[in-house]
């Protein structure tokens, strides 16, 4: 990995929300890299800061959200220093995003074709006839049957799976170099999820895009990611190559998460569980934010906040006592 240049580097990103109740430190010092053509999985429970991280990259935060500090280096430029005009050229063109609920991204009053064509005309400067041909080709490519007919239909006329395909077609229309997918299969049934994951892998290979796959599902991560960032309470708590994360977790949260999933492929007696609840973002625990739920915690964890340390080559953990996890089996 060291010999390649990352296409995207997020450095110490902090995004806070200023609400009536106080400051929500939704993303609080997140760093990771994305290399060309690879898939980075971001995994964590709800509220851990996954969506806010991706919205920060796209600079699509609402007025309450503020990027406090950090850098987002894309092809050598810091996105946080770009004007809104320059940013608009990046969005959709260079970095595209798809969401859990396609109805949010698709406009209900325009046909699927109109929406894809608009993007194509805007970014590629072709005429309408050519754009329509390209839109139909794209719909075919993402596996929508009878694309000549579907191109003139409205979003509500498509099933959930088909809408997700249409949104992927729209995102790909400008051949972005990065696709950010925020829980793209969470609302879908498993047989449809399998179709969409398959499609995304295929297209990624064909287009050579880098992919950021955001999900709460460790199964999806294992299926598709090359590298993984595990998030907890606004932090990346563990970061490394996918096999390392699953076979040698070195953060107690990752270890707990992996041990608490009911599995189809192995027999389990009783599930392990992580005690307690996800912390209140207005009031994160002192020291290590995981310490109240951590089975390995010692006094130090309550007072001092651990830094990311390289525990194995290219494998990082935000835990003082990562050594306690050596030799533990996930079961």
């Amino acid at each position, binding site marked *: 990995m060291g010999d390649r240049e990352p296409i995207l580097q997020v450095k110490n990103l902090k995004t806070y929300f200023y609400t009536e109740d106080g400051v929500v430190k939704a993303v609080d010092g997140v760093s990771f890299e994305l290399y060309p053509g690879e898939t980075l999985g971001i995994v964590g429970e709800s509220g851990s800061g996954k969506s806010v991280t991706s919205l920060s990259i796209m600079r699509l935060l609402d007025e309450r959200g503020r990027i406090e500090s950090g850098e987002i280096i894309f092809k050598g430029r810091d996105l946080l220093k770009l004007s809104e005009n320059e940013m608009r050229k990046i969005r959709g063109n260079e970095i595209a995003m798809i969401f859990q609920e396609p109805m949010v991204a698709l406009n209900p009053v325009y046909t699927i074709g109109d929406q894809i064509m608009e993007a194509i005309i805007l970014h590629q400067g072709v005429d309408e006839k050519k754009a329509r041909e390209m839109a139909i080709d794209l719909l075919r490519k993402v596996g929508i*049957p009878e694309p000549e007919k579907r191109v003139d239909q409205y979003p509500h006329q498509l099933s959930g799976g088909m809408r997700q395909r249409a949104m992927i077609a729209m995102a790909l229309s400008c051949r972005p170099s990065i696709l950010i997918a925020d829980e793209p299969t969470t609302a879908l*049934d*498993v047989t449809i999820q399998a*179709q969409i994951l398959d499609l995304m892998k295929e297209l990624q290979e064909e287009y050579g895009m880098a992919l950021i796959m955001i999900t*709460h599902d460790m199964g999806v991560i*294992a299926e598709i990611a090359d590298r993984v960032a595990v998030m907890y309470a606004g932090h990346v708590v563990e970061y490394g190559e996918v*096999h390392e994360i699953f076979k040698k977790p070195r953060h107690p949260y990752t270890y707990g998460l992996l041990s*608490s999933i009911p599995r189809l492929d192995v027999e389990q007696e*009783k*599930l392990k569980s992580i005690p307690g609840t996800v912390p209140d973002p207005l009031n994160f625990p002192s020291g290590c934010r995981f310490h109240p739920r951590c089975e390995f915690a010692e006094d130090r964890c309550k007072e001092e906040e651990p830094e990311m340390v390289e525990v194995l080559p290219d494998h990082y953990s935000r835990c003082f006592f990562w050594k306690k996890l050596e030799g533990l089996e996930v079961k």
Partner: protein
Amino acid sequence: MEKRTVLKVENLVKHFPIKAGVFKRTVGWVKAVDGVSFEVYEGETLGLVGESGCGKTTVGMTLLRLYEPTSGRIIVEDEDTTYYFMPMLKAKSYIKKTYLDRFERLYREKKERALEELNGVDKKYYEMFLNGGKSGLYRYLISNMQEKRKAFRRNVQIIFQDPYSSLDPRMRVKNIVAEGIKAHGLARGEEVVRKVSELLSGVGIIPEHMYRFPHEFSGGQRQRIGIARALALQPKVVIADEAVAALDVSIRSQIINLMEELQERHKLTYIFISHDLSVVKHVSDRIAVMYLGKIVELASKKELFENPLHPYTVALMSAIPVPDPDKRNKRRIILQGDVPSPINPPKGCRFHTRCPVAKEICSEKEPQLVEVKPGHFVSCHFPGSLGWKS
């Protein structure tokens, strides 16, 4: 040990009318549940799994009579409860058709010998018919409806998916949990508080928090409160409809473990409804797989996973991403297309439009759910022909 059936569903059908126009004419039917049969044994967990829209919730709601069944029988222990919640006239005509008229015909043909071919409630009621005549049986079935309904409500409880909307936000937790206890007169005054404390600590909620409102608890804690409420009446059967679906992974396993502990402690019988086969596999003794309003396969967990026979079961198993990157390249069965609409389900086998091994007969003739091995039921013309190994 002999297995005792606590709940039996026979040929359950629930169709919802589709209304249109100013006169709200019925223009069609959603065949949400279209002939579902299963038994649940005492102390076991029966998993009901299938993708969204296949009719799982409708099965649960119809069992509880929160929806009125279109047809079919719902038997609890050794009583037919189907007519308990029907309007009086309808209940009478149900009893007449299902028992009185039928038994009369049987008696004319076979006299006492008919007993030999009957079992379960039919046998019990036919004996009453022989002893007390038509009017004796009728009186037995139609009397004490109020108590019958109450007993049913006590015996069968439900836990819902959404711990946010299923608890009344204006009620204190104490009253939420105590509601049923009071309605059924199971306790009064101080005794109620003691019972609620016991129930709450049994599900891991600090009893002192009983005077708080639902919004003061996290999702997982609310689900615990929902469970305490369901257990308040000491039910025999608990239907859990997507009870852990809305919870985060680390909290989900807490609730699963809690439900398993409570099952052991209170000898509960569960019908565990979920779209998530991994969760269902973990909690169930037996599993029924549903597709478009029908059960396509039913077997013990072990048998189902070692020897899945229905192509849909196999496809479902293969579609689930396994949390192990080493197993990434296993061969997957990718089903084509979407689930068809339950308004006009495909003719023949309902799965034939997506089935990788369908042949001509599949689009013509509907396969029946047959027992191919003791306890293993499947409805497919070509069971076992779609192979897959994880």
